[in-house]
């Protein structure tokens, strides 16, 4: 080691901006921008299913009210109002229609309020039973027994010009009923 008095250290200098380092940074920046520009349509495309750009419910006719005998519960089917040509059989959605009397109806979603299995109506005992975990509902949709946390999901309905209409189009869950 030498004893020579040393020059004071110069303050740590930034590496000099050369043409090369400038172009490197510019290149990085431009690519980041390009990636962001690509990401916008990609993300928008994927989450378009979530961000509702159109209504997810519509009024759908279930048929003439004459098809539903008084004080009885019948299976009805409607076509998904937002179907596409290649939906196949999945476009046909079943529901249970109970004609309480006159123009008073109850239209229940087929899906059990527990975990969505298709409930079946048994007119003899006046009960809906679920094949999955044994949820049972009374004819008016109230829980009779089993794990369902609430009664059957009910569609909004209206009677217009002798026909029964329901507002449908989405699958009912606990966070979003029909």
């Amino acid at each position, binding site marked *: 080691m030498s004893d020579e008095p040393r020059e004071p250290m110069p303050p740590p200098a930034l590496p000099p901006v050369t043409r090369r380092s400038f172009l490197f940074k510019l290149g990085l920046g431009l690519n980041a921008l390009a990636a962001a520009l690509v990401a916008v349509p990609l993300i928008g495309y994927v989450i378009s*299913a*979530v961000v509702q750009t159109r209504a*997810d419910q519509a009024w759908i006719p279930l048929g003439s009210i004459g098809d539903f005998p008084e004080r009885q519960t019948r299976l009805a089917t409607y076509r998904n109002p*937002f179907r596409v040509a290649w939906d196949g*059989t999945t476009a046909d*959605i079943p529901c249970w229609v109970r004609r309480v009397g006159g123009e008073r109806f109850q239209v229940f979603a087929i899906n059990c309020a527990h975990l969505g299995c298709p409930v*079946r109506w*048994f007119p003899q005992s006046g009960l809906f039973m679920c094949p999955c975990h044994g949820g049972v509902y*009374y004819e008016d949709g109230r829980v009779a027994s089993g794990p369902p946390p609430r009664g059957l999901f009910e569609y909004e309905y209206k009677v217009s010009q002798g026909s029964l209409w329901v507002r449908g189009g989405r*699958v009912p869950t606990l966070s979003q009923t029909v």
Partner: protein
Amino acid sequence: MGSSRLRAAGDWLEQRLGLRPLFEGSAGHLVPSNASSWWYVFGSATLVCLVMQIATGICLALVYVPSADQAWESLQHLDFEQPFGWYLRGLHYWGSNFMVALMTLHMIQVFLFGAYKYPRELTWLCGCLLFLCTLGLAFTGQVLRFDQNAYWGLGIGVSIMGRIPLLGESLTSLVLGGPILAAETLTRFFSLHVFVLPGLVITLVVLHLRMVLHNGINEFPTRGRGVDPETYDAEYAELIERTGEPFFPNAIHKDLLFSAVVIGSILACAAIFGPKLPNGPPDPTLIDTVPRPDFYFLALFSVFALLPPYMETFLIVYVMPVVVLALFAIPFVSRSGAKHPADRPVAVAGVVLVMTTVMTLAVLGLSSDWSPHMDAWKSVAVPVEMVEGRSPLELRGAAVLQAKQCRNCHALDGSGGKRGPDLGDVATRLTEDQLIRQVLQGGGNMPAYGKNLSPPEVAALVAFLRTLSPADAAIAQNSADPLGG
């Protein structure tokens, strides 16, 4: 002369390809000689399954049509018309079962041998992600079968997601590709199953293997010796120095043998049991269906049936993610210390507990006694000895029992639904008053039948139920009644 020519040609090629360093850093890397063990074969066997899944999957995708209106038909074509179609479907189906099973064994072995400890924490983490991705592949694959089970199974999945507060609705739409299960749902799952998840799995496998090579394969644990992060690296280097041998060709023989057995078993299972056939077209209006998940999800299916309802949402939304996080966190919580299973009784007990629980739940899920037997009321007769010599009123009661679907939940001497108690000996348990009350008001998981049974029907039903007791058993009596009254 010939061999020296060959060597020269080899050298010429090697000079251009430079494979030797690659080989020495991969298949030829040194492993401790004690790591050549039958316990260490599950990881490589899982990888072999993955390769088979990719090969059979690509072939299936040549024919399968991922469209909601034609997927089911294309499976019929694959199963019955396409040459070898049924067999490839069988291989893919059984391959997935084997892959999940072997991966689970691999994970258990790694856990029991303490292989996740320093310096292999990230290898474990990566493995956990692989586990989740593989289960994701299993679930999405089950959806591609696009039959009734797939349709309603997805319905169950969506209902589970719908329970997540705030995000439920968005998640549902994201998964279904819209507000309802339809064409876009299938194409989403197809894309996940054939592009997204396999891509992720391949990336993670590469990372996983890179870390295995970089940190070295875990040495066979020794009793009484643990991991001390301060000294471990030096000890491992010394072990390799002393006993290291190249994985290929010295230590690979057990992996090779086991992999051959695994492939053979998959080939045999596919040939003997065939593929899992789709169970009915995905037509939601065919509601006479009893959805069941594939084996790997049966345990989960059982959990939802057996939990008390008030715990369900809590468990799904909060406990399940915590369990997954706990799995990830294992190597960071237990980073050092004993490796040998005999030194870690709690770890062993934990594995036994978890596996017993999962298997028990899965087996329960196979029979799912909690589900009503939806056709029992019209397909399972009252046993003859229960109607022989009965009065007209009691016979009328037996008819009521059938007609009102009681049998869907209640068995008579073992036949019928198992959701409620077997009624074959109900007279020994409930008095007449208790029976009437139970039928009219329900309770204890039974609906109240008060509104749907007329008083004469109730009288007949209870009269019949009062005759149901084993020959020599005493009938339940109201203790307030005088004896013999």
